[in-house]
């Protein structure tokens, strides 16, 4: 138990960091080999466009297709053959790529971008209108709608529906995971104490309710600690790994994409820097302190609500395999809540979102999705009020079932029986 906890605490951030950095690392790997492409250009007009660079080497040959194929049957350097049979202005399907393997998308996009761009310019030139190229360039539009949220005090904030969605869903999922994982841990702990028969020894020293609450609070603290460590360790690790691998990746890929952009449009773009600034301004539009505080409150409320019920289930059964019958009614609303959260994210002020953020069994998860979009204070107050009253209620109920259940051995418990225990 102890060992596995330590392992889990330290390995999970490694896993997360790996999930973040490994794709970046893989992305940096694939550009290392030079791609050798033969070109058979029957029109003889594209040699000046397809220039070799660090990644792609274009080799213009004048042979039949079959000859190239036979010559390079065993040549590992050979990547692909580009065959252009006709003027692409007239016949846009006149270019074909042959390869022994599946042609990768990047190569195909690269060549088709270059050729399309060239043909586009040729066509424009054919109109014989001075400055047409410039006019077309100017007429290009990239509409990016900025969303701005009005504050209470009339201040404008740059908002982002996408970012709100991401923040909401992440916090909802984390709360969902924690309730399921740590709720199950509470239940397993109670079952373990019962099956190992330690429980009666302990409750001759402490009250059953104290024992139950001790277990619930203890595991909540473990959960919060573990969560904090995950956040801290994951960010440290992914920063560290990112800075080791990162330099190469960022410079290469960014430079390359900029190069291509330059080639295409004839001027450098500042998308990378611009979007980062944009993201920063959007992030500052969210009140992270508020969201974090409500995250902790809803996490604790939801956890307390469910954990006490899980403890009651654990106390009523004789072994872990018997828990299913009673834990199903507990896991169903949690699973329902996560689906409600996904739908609520699309319409955070709709009736489903409103009701599910009030019902205590779903509110800790659904409200997290709504919060980044902004929720009226009175709704939060009602939702929290109901949640607090409910977890006091479930804890009280669970306490009654628990104190009878833990001393009941070798009896197949039914729902009717549980109802009876409630009224002792």
């Amino acid at each position, binding site marked *: 138990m102890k060992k596995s906890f330590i392992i889990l605490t330290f390995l999970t951030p490694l896993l997360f960091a790996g999930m973040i950095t490994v794709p970046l690392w893989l992305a940096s790997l694939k550009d290392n080999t030079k791609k050798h492409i033969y070109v058979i250009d029957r029109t003889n007009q594209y040699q000046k466009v397809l220039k070799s660079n660090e990644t792609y080497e274009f080799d213009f040959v004048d042979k039949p297709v079959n000859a190239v194929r036979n010559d390079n049957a065993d040549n590992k350097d050979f990547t692909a053959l580009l065959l252009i049979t006709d003027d692409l202005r007239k016949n846009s399907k006149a270019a074909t790529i042959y390869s022994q393997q599946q042609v990768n998308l990047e190569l195909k996009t690269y060549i088709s971008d270059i050729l399309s761009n060239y043909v586009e310019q040729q066509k424009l030139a054919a109109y014989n209108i001075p400055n047409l190229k410039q006019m077309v360039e100017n007429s290009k539009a990239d509409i990016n709608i900025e969303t701005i949220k009005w504050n209470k005090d009339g201040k404008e904030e740059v908002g982002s529906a996408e970012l709100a969605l991401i923040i909401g869903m992440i916090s909802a999922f984390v709360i969902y995971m924690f309730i399921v994982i740590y709720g199950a841990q509470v239940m397993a702990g109670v079952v373990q104490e019962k099956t190992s028969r330690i429980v009666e*020894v302990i409750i001759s*020293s402490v009250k059953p309710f104290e024992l139950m609450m001790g277990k619930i609070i203890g595991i909540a603290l473990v959960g919060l600690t573990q969560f904090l460590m995950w956040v801290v360790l994951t960010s440290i690790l992914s920063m560290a790994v990112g800075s080791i691998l990162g330099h190469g990746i960022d410079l290469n890929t960014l430079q390359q994409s900029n190069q291509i952009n330059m080639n295409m449009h004839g001027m450098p773009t500042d998308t990378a820097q611009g979007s980062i600034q944009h993201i920063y301004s959007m992030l500052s539009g969210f009140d992270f302190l508020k969201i974090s505080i409500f995250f902790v409150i809803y996490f604790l409320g939801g956890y307390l609500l469910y954990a006490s019920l899980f403890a009651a289930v654990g106390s009523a059964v004789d072994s872990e395999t018997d828990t299913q019958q009673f834990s199903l009614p507990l896991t169903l609303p949690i699973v329902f809540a996560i689906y409600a959260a996904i739908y609520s994210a699309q319409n955070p002020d709709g009736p489903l979102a409103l009701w599910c953020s009030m019902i205590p069994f779903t509110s800790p998860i659904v409200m997290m999705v709504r919060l980044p979009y902004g929720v009226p204070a009175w709704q939060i107050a009602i939702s929290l009020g109901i949640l607090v009253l409910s977890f006091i209620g479930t804890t009280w109920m669970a306490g009654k079932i628990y104190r009878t259940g833990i001393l009941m051995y070798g009896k197949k418990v039914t729902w009717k029986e549980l109802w009876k225990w409630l009224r002792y």
Partner: protein
Amino acid sequence: MILLEVENVVKQFAGHLALDNVSLTVPENSIYGLLGPNGAGKTTLIRIINCITAPDSGEVRLNGKKMTTAEVQQIGYLPEERGLYKKMKVGEQALYLAQLKGMSRQDALKALKYWFEKFEIQAWWDKKVEELSKGMAQKVQFITTILHNPKLLIFDEPFSGFDPVNADLMKREILELRNNGATIIFSTHNMGTVEDLCENISLVNQAKIVLQGNVAEIRANHATKTFLVRSENSITGNNFELLSQTEKDGIFETKIKKMNTGSNNLLLKELIQQTEIHTFEELLPGMNDIFIETVKP
């Protein structure tokens, strides 16, 4: 001096009466037996004494005071369904349980050292409980029960799960604890131990106490006027009924039952006239017989 008083305790579980107006008093520095068939209500009574369950009515007092947390701390309780955290180390766990009973860490360590040496189980300190056999775990449990030097010890079926050697060890320890001033209540099915250990008993059957008192008195009251006579020759008489007679190495062993209410001396006088009498002994019924006879429907 009375240590524990249970007065008119009633406990009802949905639709079934577990304890019906049960009262008993346990004198200080004695061993008290709680007997009864399975499901009679012994464990419920023990749990009420330990404040694990609350009675519907009635009262339990320790040293004349109503049970509170402070009073419960003076009890050492070994439940029938007993166990330990399997993944925890023996020493660590014993310390934890002792501290739960209000002992300081130092005191607990000192006491544990004493008991572990006494039972010669120091080598188990760093073992996990799951590595111990059932009997070994029971020893550890016994130690954790008595460690905080409680005034009152309650053992529910203490000898179940022990082999005869360890059961005997436990018996001796219980006697020693009594000699050192503790008061002990235990429930058992083993009537032999009751005769060996208990001064007083209560026999619980179907939620009621059906027999209560001093073991010697109870046995005397249940006397069936049966006597065992060892003599040179066979005996006969009108005042008694011959139950059985055997001869071994020239000695006759005869079991007789007195027919009248005359004194034992009168009976003996009649026998002495017939032959040489080696022994004349009243056969008191065992607790086993009394138990079966009392509980029989």
